[in-house]
């Protein structure tokens, strides 16, 4: 496994859960600057929980999450806002504001956090929509769009302030294969052209093989990490049979006996 040169996100000894239930038990991993990093795992393995810890929505039971060297867990006030300005998040169902047009959605962070002249905000928001292939849909309401377009618009909004890291929660869930491939292409283009680091929670293997530089696979039973590495190598060479099974989409061998 190659060593990380320049980690932009570091998760150290993270333990998390809800109330009494433990969901993640003492995991650590790093995300390299500029890479597309995918968190894989079965349903209920705590993928989304990890994501929500990483973007500071929930507090972990213990552990550290360093974004660009700053701990988002302990940050408060201005420091926290500073960290949040470096990340953008696309939620699973888009979470676009239904009362605003796409342009207004993508413009909102610019209005709130910059002093740009209004025409400049419009232009930048339009450019972000152009980047996700939604040029010409600026005046549409989110409800008028298909699921794939809503996700792309949500990515445009997440990119509004040019964050260094984008977190995507299940970008391909609920999308048809073609639309899903379009979103994959969008991620690859943004990573290549703009140098954005992507942290993606997914259970879509096809998409993972296309976009991921590295993956971390969560194990539901141990609540820890089953494997970390390049997806193709893990699929063919992992010494953990469960990981090979997972990445090859095999049914658990004892399931239908």
């Amino acid at each position, binding site marked *: 496994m190659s060593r990380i040169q320049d980690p932009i996100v570091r998760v150290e000894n993270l333990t998390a859960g809800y109330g009494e239930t433990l969901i993640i038990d003492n995991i650590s991993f790093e995300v390299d600057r500029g890479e597309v990093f995918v968190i894989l795992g079965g349903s209920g393995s705590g993928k989304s929980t990890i994501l929500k810890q990483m973007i500071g929505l929930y507090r972990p039971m213990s552990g550290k999450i360093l974004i660009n060297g700053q701990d988002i867990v302990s940050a408060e006030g201005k420091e926290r806002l500073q960290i949040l300005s470096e990340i953008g998040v696309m939620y699973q169902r888009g979470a676009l504001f*239904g*009362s605003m047009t796409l342009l207004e959605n993508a413009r909102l962070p*610019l209005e709130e*956090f*910059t*002093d*740009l*002249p*209004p*025409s*400049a905000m*419009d*232009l*930048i928001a*339009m*450019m*972000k929509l*152009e*980047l996700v292939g939604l*040029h010409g849909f600026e*005046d549409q309401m*989110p*409800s008028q769009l298909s699921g794939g377009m809503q996700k792309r618009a949500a990515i445009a909004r997440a*990119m*509004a*302030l*040019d964050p260094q890291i984008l977190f995507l929660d299940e970008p391909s869930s609920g999308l048809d294969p073609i639309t899903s491939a379009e979103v994959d292409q969008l991620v690859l283009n943004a990573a290549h*052209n*703009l*140098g954005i680091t992507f942290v993606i929670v997914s259970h879509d293997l096809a998409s993972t093989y296309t976009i991921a530089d590295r993956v971390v696979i969560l194990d539901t039973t141990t609540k820890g990490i089953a494997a970390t590495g390049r997806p193709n190598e893990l699929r063919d060479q992992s010494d953990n049979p469960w990981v090979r099974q997972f990445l090859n989409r095999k049914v658990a061998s004892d399931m239908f006996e």
Partner: protein
Amino acid sequence: MDVASFNMQGESPASIRADASGPGGLLLTIEGRLDSATTAKVWREATGAIEKMSPSRVVVDASKINYCDVSGIGLLVDILRRQQMRGGEAEIRDLQARFQRILDLFDPAGFRDAQTEERKSVNLAEEVGKTVYRIWQDAYDLIVFVGEVFVSLVYAFRNPRRVRWKDAFLVAETTGVNALPIIALVSFLVGLIMGFQAVIPMRQFGAEIFVADLVGLAILRELGPLMTAIVLTGRSGSAFAAELGTMKVNEEIDALNTMGLDPVRFLVVSRVIAALAMTPLLTIFSDLIGVMGGSLVLRSLGYPFVTYWNEVLSAVSYMDFLSGLVKSLVFGIMIAGIGCLRGLQTKIGATAVGESATRAVVSGIIFIVIIDGVFSVVYYYLGV
């Protein structure tokens, strides 16, 4: 010679220098870091210089830009776009390759009409027409809905086992039992205030005791049912609208439809039945507390409670009491119905739910006023 030099202080290390002295048109030299935070001032300077001098040719010396994200690229696109729109030329010189790659993603001509559209002017005739149509449509929907609810209620009456009694009891608890404190508070206060205001002029004629007649009649015939209805609209009408509205937004109403369950029969009937049962009970309660409120006024003037009570009993008849109850029954059906209708009419999104709740309360109160007026006229001619 026109040199505008400008440096930003503090955290924003981006600067721009405009020089119009050269032969090649306006030369803009941009230095430093262009990101969404630092671009703002540079942007104003750059577009300001272009607007002021309207040069035929703009050259941007970008060799000293050491960082540039999409917002920074936006500035360059804006310069190119402005020049294109004005029929001038523009050139971005010596931009680092990694930023040039981002710039190449965008076609400035594509953003030519990026100005926000002006609001469409309002045409009076059009607006009036639309409003009339909307009112007509609303009335039509209401009539259809009343019909549906009536049919469903008849069905429920003939097939009482098909009614979802569990839901009905739950709704009865939230709209009825839980509303007792607020209704008690409002009724008590109204009885007290009315008695107090009346006793001041009546005292001058030695007619304090007739405050009991006034409070008793007014509360039983009018104010008891009215206050109950208004509180119910605010509490439960809006709640019904918000609940059904959220169900509509979440496609739960569609799910009911595709399962072959009529939403009116499934959701509205239980609520209407609950409101129908609860409003008269709440009204009786409100009557009682309101009259009690009035008694405090006379008590403070030295009249014993029993005197007040006897005076009230001699002033009001069962007919007064029943006329109030009948009215409250109609209020109850109407409030629940309007709340549910507004909920089912909800359009898409979170705003629509709030709108439905507001509409439920507003139209609920309007209908209370109308129905109360109709009852007054009917009772007058019937001599009740």
